[in-house]
C-alpha cells in the first residue's frame, strides 16, 4: 500500500505546470474567444512538439507511454489554466479508447496522432455533441447499431453550439457516410462504460486544478483588497468561505487519484471509483466557484476580471462526462444492492 506519487511523476507535474502557466494565460484564452471560434493552433502544435499530446500513447507507437496515474497530475494542471485545447480529452479519452481496440486501424490512428497528422474527437455518449469537431479529422462514436465507428469529418454536417464558456468549441455532428467500424457491437457495453469513465475521469482531474485556481485567485484578492481598514481576507466570514473550499478540495483529491489507479488496474469497482471522483471533484469546483466569487464581491462578477473563465469552465466539466445525476444513480445502484461490501475493510478490497 503506497498512496503517493513518485518523484518522477511529481517532477513531470512541476515542469508541465511551469509550461502551462507561462503559455496558457488568461489573456491568451481571451484572444481565442475573440477569434470567434477558431482554435489556437499554435498552442496545440506547441503541446504536440513537447510530446504532451502523445504522452499516453504507447512507446512502441512513438508516444511516451504514460498511464492514467502518471497523467492525472498533468490533467490537474491543464485544469488549473483552463486549457481550452482538447489536450486532456485526447490523452485521457481518445488514446486509451483506441488502445483498447485490436486491429490495424486503431494503431494507425494513434500513429497519426503522434505525428500530428490530424486530431481525433469523440462524440459525447449523452448528447451526441462533439468537442472541437472542426479541427478533427475523425470522430469516434457509437452508431445506431452500437458499433464503435470512426467517422470522417470531411463532408459531415457540423452545427456549432454555443456554450456559456466561450472557450468550449462544441458541435452537433452528423456524418455523411457510415464511418469505419472499429469494434462490433458485442463489446458495446464494455466500451460505452469505458468511454464514459474516461470522460468523467478527465473532467474530475481538471476540476481539481480549476478549484485550486479559483481558490488561489480568491486568497490573493482578499489579501490585497481592503475594506473597513483591513484586508477582507482577515475577516472570519471570508476566511471560512475559503477554508470550506480548501476542505472540500483536500478530500476530493484522493478520490480522483484512486480512480486513476483503478482505471489503470481494471479494478472491479473502477466505475464506482470514477463516479465518486467525478462527484467529489465537480462539487469541489462548484463550491470553489461560488465561494471565490462571493469572496471577490463585485470584482468577481466582471468580465474583465479572470475568475469567470474558471467558473464557466467548471460548469462545463460538471455537465459533461456524465452529469452528477448519472454518477449518483450509478453509485446508488451498487450501494443498495444486496452484495455490496462496505464498512471499515471494504475500501481497497
Amino acid at each position, binding site marked *: 500500500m503506497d498512496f503517493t506519487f513518485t518523484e518522477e511523476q511529481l517532477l513531470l507535474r512541476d515542469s508541465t505546470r511551469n509550461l502551462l502557466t507561462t503559455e496558457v494565460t488568461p489573456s491568451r484564452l481571451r484572444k481565442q474567444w475573440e477569434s470567434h471560434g477558431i482554435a489556437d493552433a499554435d498552442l496545440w502544435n506547441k503541446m504536440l512538439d513537447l510530446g504532451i499530446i502523445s504522452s499516453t500513447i504507447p512507446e512502441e507507437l512513438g508516444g511516451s507511454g504514460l498511464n492514467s496515474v502518471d497523467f492525472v497530475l498533468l490533467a490537474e494542471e491543464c485544469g488549473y489554466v483552463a486549457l481550452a485545447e482538447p489536450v486532456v480529452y485526447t490523452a485521457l479519452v481518445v488514446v486509451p479508447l483506441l488502445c483498447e481496440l485490436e486491429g490495424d486501424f486503431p494503431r494507425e490512428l494513434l500513429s497519426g496522432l503522434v505525428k500530428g497528422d490530424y486530431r481525433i474527437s469523440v462524440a*459525447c455518449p*449523452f*448528447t*451526441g*455533441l462533439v468537442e472541437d469537431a472542426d479541427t478533427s479529422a475523425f470522430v469516434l462514436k457509437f452508431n445506431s447499431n452500437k458499433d464503435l465507428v470512426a467517422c470522417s469529418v470531411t463532408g459531415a454536417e457540423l452545427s456549432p*453550439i*454555443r*456554450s*456559456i*464558456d466561450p472557450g*468550449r468549441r462544441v458541435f*452537433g455532428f452528423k456524418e455523411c457516410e457510415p464511418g469505419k467500424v472499429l469494434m462490433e457491437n458485442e463489446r458495446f457495453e464494455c466500451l460505452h462504460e469505458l468511454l464514459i469513465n474516461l470522460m468523467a475521469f478527465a473532467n474530475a482531474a481538471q476540476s481539481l486544478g480549476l478549484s485550486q485556481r479559483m481558490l488561489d485567485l480568491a486568497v490573493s484578492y482578499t489579501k490585497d483588497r*481592503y*475594506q*473597513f*481598514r483591513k484586508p*477582507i481576507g482577515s*475577516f472570519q*466570514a*471570508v476566511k471560512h468561505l475559503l477554508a470550506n473550499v480548501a476542505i472540500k478540495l483536500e478530500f476530493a483529491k484522493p478520490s480522483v487519484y484512486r480512480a486513476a489507479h483503478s482505471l489503470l488496474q481494471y479494478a472491479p469497482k473502477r466505475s464506482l471509483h470514477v463516479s465518486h471522483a467525478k462527484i467529489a471533484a465537480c462539487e469541489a469546483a462548484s463550491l470553489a466557484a*461560488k465561494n471565490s*466569487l*462571493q469572496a471577490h*464581491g*463585485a470584482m*468577481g*462578477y*466582471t*468580465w*474583465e476580471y479572470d475568475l*469567470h473563465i474558471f*467558473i*464557466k469552465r467548471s*460548469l*462545463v466539466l*460538471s*455537465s*459533461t462526462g*456524465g*452529469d*452528477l*445525476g*448519472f454518477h*449518483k*444513480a450509478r453509485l*446508488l445502484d451498487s450501494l443498495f444492492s444486496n452484495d455490496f461490501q462496505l464498512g471499515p475493510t471494504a475500501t481497497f478490497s
Partner: protein
Amino acid sequence: MDLSFSKAELEFRKEIRSWLRENVPEEQLESFDTQVGFQQHRDWEKTLHAGNWGMVTWPKEYGGRGCSLIEWLIFEEEYYRAKAPLRVNQNGLFLLGPTLMEFGSKEQKERFLPKMALGEEIWAQGWSEPNAGSDMAAIRTKAIRKGEKYVVTGQKIWSTRAVWADWIFGMFRTDPQSERHHGLSFILVPLHSKGVTIRPIAQLNGLTGFAEVFFDEVEVPADCLLGEEGDGWKVAMATAGFERGLMLRSPARFQETARRLVDLYKKNKQQADNDPSIREAVLRAYLDAESYCLLTYQTASRLVNGGHIGPESSTNKVFWSELDQSMHSTALSIIGARADLMSGITGTELTADWLEGWLFAQSGPIYAGTNEVQRNIISERMLGMPR
C-alpha cells in the same frame, strides 16, 4: 388576522390583470443592459405610466395611485404572472423615490418624482467606490460647495444602469476634512453633465450592466442636495433599507421562478430523479418561495398598521438571494448534461434562460450589501450581539 383579499383588493387585481393582458408586449424585450433594450424598457415605463401604473404606491400628485403595500404586492404578483418586462428604472422607483418622499423638499419631489414615474429620467445608483464597497463609510469622492453649486470630483463604481441612465444618486464627501460616516451628503447628479465620464463594465454575461463613473470637477446645482449637508449617511441608510427591504424584491419574482422550476422538474422527472438531491431541492424552492411571500405579506400588514421596517430587511436580503441561487443551481442540475449550453440542441428544450438566471443569481449575495455584511447587521442590530 384575515388572510383573504377584500373586495377592493380583488377588484384592483382584476383591473391590473386585464390591463397587463392587453399591454404586455408579446415579444420579450432585449436586455436593458443593451442600448436597444434600454430604450425598449424606457418606452415600456412610459406605457405603464400612460395606464397610470408607473408606481402604484406613490401619492397621486407624483404620478402614483396612492395604493397600499398590500395592493403593491398584488400588483407585483400580476406583473410577474403576466411576464411583464423588468423595471429599468428600479433604482429611481424603489430606492430614490421613497428616499425623496422622506427627505426631499416639496420642490425636489415635484421636480424629480413625476419624471421618474414617467420613465423620462432613468436613474443609476452610485453606492460604491473602488475602495468603498461593503464599507460605504470609506467614500472619498468629493462634492465641494462653491456658491450655488457643488463641484464633484472622484469616482463611483458598480453603478447599475449608469451606462445609459440620465441621473445618478449617491453619497459624496462634502466636508473634505471629515472621516468615515461624517461629512457625507446625499446628492443627485445629472450624468450628462460636463466632466462626467462613463466606462461601462461588462458582467459575467458579457453585457454592460454596470459602469464606472468618473467625475472631473462636475458642477451640480446646490438644490440637488437631498436632506441636509452632512446628513448623507442617514439618508443613505434609509435608502439602503428600502433596497434590502420590501419594495425591491417582490416575492412574486421568486414564486414565478419556483413555479418554472417545478415545471422543469415535472417535464424532466425521469432524468432528474437520477440525482436524489433534486426532489428535495424542488420542494424546498416551493416552500421557501412561499415563506418569503408569507413574511412579506406579514411585514406589509404590519407597515399598513403603522409599524416600521427594521433590521429584518437584512434577513430578507440573505433569504431571497440564497433562495435564488439555490433554485437556479437546482435547475442546472435538472438540465444536467446540457447545463452549460446557450443554444439548443435539436429536439431538446432551450434552457439558456436558466443559465442566464444562474449567472445573475450569483450577484444576489454580493450587491446591495454582501450577505456577510447583512449577517453582521442581523447579529448586531436584531440580536444585539457585540460589534
